[in-house]
């Protein structure tokens, strides 16, 4: 008795579910995250138990432990920074200015900068911190 030999079919990998997953991941990352310019230098934020959460906004001032300052991605000297922030606040008096200061920075240096920012007309000023015990947050 002679059985018909099954003909070898070319094996096709099913790509459709893979493409579905990749599209879903793509849409998730596009919608859930935000793309921002990189900070001028890395800053290790102070930890706090503040219960108000938020994202970075238009004016983010970075303060390094040695006192170096930056406005977002641009390192700046103090007078230049104050005039740049003053211009932002004059254009939009409701602008939220955020201080992203290193935990090891001198507190008096940070508070001094807060006072100078108030003098150039900053209305709303917040200090950005990370959660207590959460290394990855912030």
């Amino acid at each position, binding site marked *: 008795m002679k059985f018909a030999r099954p003909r070898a079919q070319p094996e096709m990998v099913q*790509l459709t579910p*893979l*493409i579905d997953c*990749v*599209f879903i*991941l*793509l849409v998730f*990352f*596009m919608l*859930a*995250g*935000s*793309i*921002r310019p990189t900070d001028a230098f890395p800053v290790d*934020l*102070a*930890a*706090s*138990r*503040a*219960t*108000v*959460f*938020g*994202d*970075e906004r238009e004016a983010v001032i970075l303060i390094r432990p040695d006192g170096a300052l930056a406005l977002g991605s641009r390192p700046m000297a103090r007078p230049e920074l104050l005039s740049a922030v003053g211009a932002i606040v004059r254009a939009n008096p409701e602008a939220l200015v*955020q*201080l992203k*200061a*290193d*935990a*090891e*920075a*001198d*507190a*008096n240096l*940070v*508070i*001094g900068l*807060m*006072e100078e*920012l*108030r003098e150039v007309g*900053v*209305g*709303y*000023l*917040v*200090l*950005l*911190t*990370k*959660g207590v015990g959460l290394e990855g*947050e*912030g």
Partner: protein
Amino acid sequence: MQLRQRPNHSFVALQITPLIDVVFMLLVFFMLATNFARFRLIGVESPQERQVAATAEGAIVIEISADGGLRFDGNDAPRAALPDLVARTVAIDPNRQFLVRPGPGVSLQEAVTAHDEARAGGARFLSFSRTREARP
């Protein structure tokens, strides 16, 4: 003689490989460039707070020193007692203003921790202030 050829009805596979390439590129870009960081915000200045600061004469000053010492309204106190001291004051006057005043050499982390403790004690109007020695 048959001049007209029959149309070829064989199945034409759509080439999706370049599409998948592009989608993968986009996916890798967004995975690397996207930022999910959320911050905890400490409000230190707003027009309302400034109004309070201008009118509140008897603000209580919480002085912290680099060696871990605490002075609450001019009196030495153990550091751990800060939330209790604030709570006792707030029980008498809920609208009392508190100023966290770090001494020379105190790091921002210590000032923020003291701010947290005062907030835990129930302080509603809380701000930072510089030491007189540190002013230029």
